[in-house]
């Protein structure tokens, strides 16, 4: 009987210093430590990273596609948040 009792982990890799960790995929592991080792073997076989985060997938809280309007629509009509909203004469330098 093949039953997976190992939980799913999401993996994030920092490609090099100065960059954010980026989500690269997931894996199964018995615990955090094993997840980290598996992530090293699976996602960084060729210098793809200098640092790894692993997070239990069921600990991730995410916005859903249905929340899209409630979450992201309000920012659409706030054009005054963008620098291009303000007209400044060309004669004014460095702005």
């Amino acid at each position, binding site marked *: 009987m093949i*039953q*997976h009792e190992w939980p799913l982990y999401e993996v994030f890799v920092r490609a090099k210093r100065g960059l954010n960790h980026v989500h690269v995929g997931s894996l199964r592991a*018995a615990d955090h430590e094993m997840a980290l080792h598996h992530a090293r*073997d699976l996602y960084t*076989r060729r210098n793809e990273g200098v640092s790894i985060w692993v997070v239990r997938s069921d600990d991730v809280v995410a916005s859903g596609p249905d929340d899209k309007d409630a979450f992201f629509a309000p920012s659409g009509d706030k054009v005054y948040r963008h620098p291009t909203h303000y007209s400044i004469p060309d004669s004014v330098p460095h702005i």
Partner: protein
Amino acid sequence: MEGVMSEQTFTATIEKDQRIEPRDWMPDGYRKTMIRQIAQHAHSEIIGMQPEGAWITRAPSLRRKAILLAKVQDEAGHGLYLYSAAETLGADRGDLTRRLIEGRQKYSSIFNYPTLSFADVGVIGWLVDGAAICNQVPLCRSSYGPYARAMIRICKEESFHQRQGYELLMTMMRGTEAQREMVQDAVNRWWWPSLMMFGPPDAESPNTAQSMAWKIKRHTNDELRQRFVDMSVPQAEALGVTLPDPDLRWNDDRGHHDFGAIDWSELKRVISGDGPMNTERIANRRRADEEGAWVREAAAAHAGKRAAT
């Protein structure tokens, strides 16, 4: 009402050539097709470790052994990237493995052929990984985001696979007459099965139209097969081997190579379980799964204990 909206959003996303992401609404058929395609692909990577894995202990030098180990390890990685993508669609990788072992899901027919000599390792890298690259490069633009991203990662690694194989063959071709014969023999055995890797001809591939509409697939089987033949001919020439097809020749009008008829009854036979190695491949996968069960259980028990203290 909301269902209609969702369907419109899905169709519009595909039309704009944007990606579908895991939590988006998608038609049941899309989800099912995607899971089936990704699982079949994942199984192929995992079963694909066996034909070459068989040569790791017999590689002729430490360098070749290290290369082969790295390559087979990559294939394991490819399988895991893909199971990971399948899980974003609600599949469970333990369940997928079970389906593979019970013969309810398929893997690429190419891995049901035996690797008789070390030249097979080179020919697999050159032709089998070469055909895989032809298939996979367009899949980097597949409409399902996690699958497309896994394919990008995989394609980056496949180039090493093909080049190490071709270099191995070049080395053998510079060797003794016996070595050259081994290479030619391996090419003779792998050429036609490699062409079959692209699947049945378009006329007999009923799902192609829907998969193209959903942008799961970007080219038809016959288009990709032709591309592979055109790429392989000059490579074979440079290597000094003959591709085993008397009808293979350049067609100026088409701007492509013509090639002989493929024995589709062989593909059907091998897919339906009657290839030379089907039973052994699945038996090995089953054994690895069963013999590893106690390790998975022990690790889970250990983790449970540690979490409790």
